[in-house]
């Protein structure tokens, strides 16, 4: 359970807005060293535990600046080689929209542990938000190199592919993702008409179901693309039903799939506290 939570924590993907190109400047290393007096005379693991607990407490309550201070204590004062400290601080920095500093933290984590899939994944998402698609693609590819069953890597690769206007490529990636888990079998069992009504619902990682949602989006995009091609060709003579269908789809991408009723798609898997 602990391992699963830890994994969930580390793959938390971060809030995004479009920012400038990351410089990888070591901004955080230029910070003034914070005062970290609690348990000052205790062992490193005790001090790390305290400040991690404190930082997560602040983060949970939305006090992101104070959470950063706590994690600063971990990586700037107590143990600069504590990989998890950079992962935790990187996540808080990203929540604060300090995307370049967050990239720096994930880079530092990767320097300390080059097999850390979650660090590549999170940094890839940050690169996506910064418009650095090549870097993002490299990071997502690395996650799958390290673990061919890392479904989140496929999901993010697919989104990136769509952003690069390759919807067919995205669909292929998502189908690969589905083939990498037993989610299709689980789905088939749930759809089986002979399934007893009182049968226990199967347990599985919900991240494995997300490719279906993303496939739905990709196919909707393809549908919209086809509708628009038809409208372009027929101009004012377009069938009003197709025009209406195209309008509805476009409206979905503009409204329904946004904050209010679209957050179901990504929320659980990007929230480390949700588990």
């Amino acid at each position, binding site marked *: *359970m602990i*391992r699963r*939570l*830890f994994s969930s*924590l580390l793959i938390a*993907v971060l*809030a*995004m*807005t*479009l920012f400038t190109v990351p410089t990888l400047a070591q901004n955080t290393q230029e910070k003034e060293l914070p005062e970290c007096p*609690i*348990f000052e005379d*205790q062992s490193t*693991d*005790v*001090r*790390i*535990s*305290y400040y*991690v*607990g*404190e*930082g*997560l*407490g*602040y*983060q*949970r*309550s*939305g006090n992101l600046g104070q959470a950063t201070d*706590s994690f600063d204590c971990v990586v700037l004062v107590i143990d600069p080689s504590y990989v*998890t400290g950079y992962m*935790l601080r990187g996540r808080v920095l990203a*929540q604060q929209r300090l995307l370049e500093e967050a990239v720096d933290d994930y880079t530092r984590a990767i320097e300390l542990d080059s097999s850390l899939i979650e660090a590549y994944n999170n940094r890839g*998402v940050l690169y996506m938000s910064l418009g650095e698609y090549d870097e993002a693609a490299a990071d997502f590819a690395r996650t799958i190199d390290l673990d061919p069953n890392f479904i989140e890597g496929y999901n993010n690769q697919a*989104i990136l592919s*769509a*952003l690069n*206007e390759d919807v067919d490529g995205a669909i292929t990636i998502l189908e690969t993702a589905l083939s990498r888990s037993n989610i299709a079998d689980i789905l088939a069992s749930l759809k089986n008409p002979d399934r007893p009504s009182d049968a226990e619902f199967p347990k599985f990682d919900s991240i494995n179901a997300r490719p279906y949602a993303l496939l739905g*989006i990709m196919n909707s*995009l393809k549908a*919209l*693309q086809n509708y*628009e091609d038809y409208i372009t060709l027929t101009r004012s003579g377009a069938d009003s039903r197709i025009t209406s269908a195209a309008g509805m789809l476009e409206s979905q*991408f*503009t409204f329904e*799939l*946004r*904050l209010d009723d*679209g*957050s179901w*798609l*990504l*929320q659980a898997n*990007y*929230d*480390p*506290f*949700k*588990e």
Partner: protein
Amino acid sequence: MRSLMRCITLFVLLLWSASLTLGVGLQAQEPLDCEDPFIPDATPAYYLGQGAVLIEQGQVARAVEAYSCAIEGDPTYAPAYARRAYAYAIMLDDRAALADYEQALTLDETLVDVYINRGALYTTLGNYGLAISDYSLALALEPDNVDALNNRAVVHAIEGNYDLALADAQAAIAADPDDVTAYATQGAIYSALSTQSYQTFIERGDEYARLPAGSPTGVMSAIDNSQRTGDMGIWLRFQVPAEQ
């Protein structure tokens, strides 16, 4: 198609933002789970960090949960009892607080902060002797502990032992001139002494005895005014001529 891509970019980014915002808000009320620290090598101090945040935010009952998690992880971890005791004291659960203070000191009799906090609880409960005893134990371990000196001064003042109170308050100021608390305590002690002196003046004077400024409060106000303005008139009223 490019506009479509902008659409999908927008909604994906907004969904990410939404997921984080919703997650933070929802989590605030979830119960603590002792078995699920976010780092695999966590010591019980992890829960003390969480508890500190909860205390700071006024979520004292949840802080007790956090400290209980630490105790569950290591029943011999004295700092967890110490902090849970403090939380119980805030919740006015005196019995639980005293039990945890006792347990903390049983496990580690050198915890100065526990003596100080238990002394404060004893003071609140009116057990001044026990409070003095705890502060003295704290000072035996750390002779220059400003909090212990200040708090013992308060208890001495409550008991009317103003000389002892002043000695402790002044010792606290000497130990750390930048700590402002003891200055306030010293001021309060002087106020008590002034009231005591005025009371003696009134008791020993005849029925016409009156303070130069009419009342203790009036005198204090006039003195305050003289220090700010340089008008020392109030002091002149205390002068008396030699008997001829």
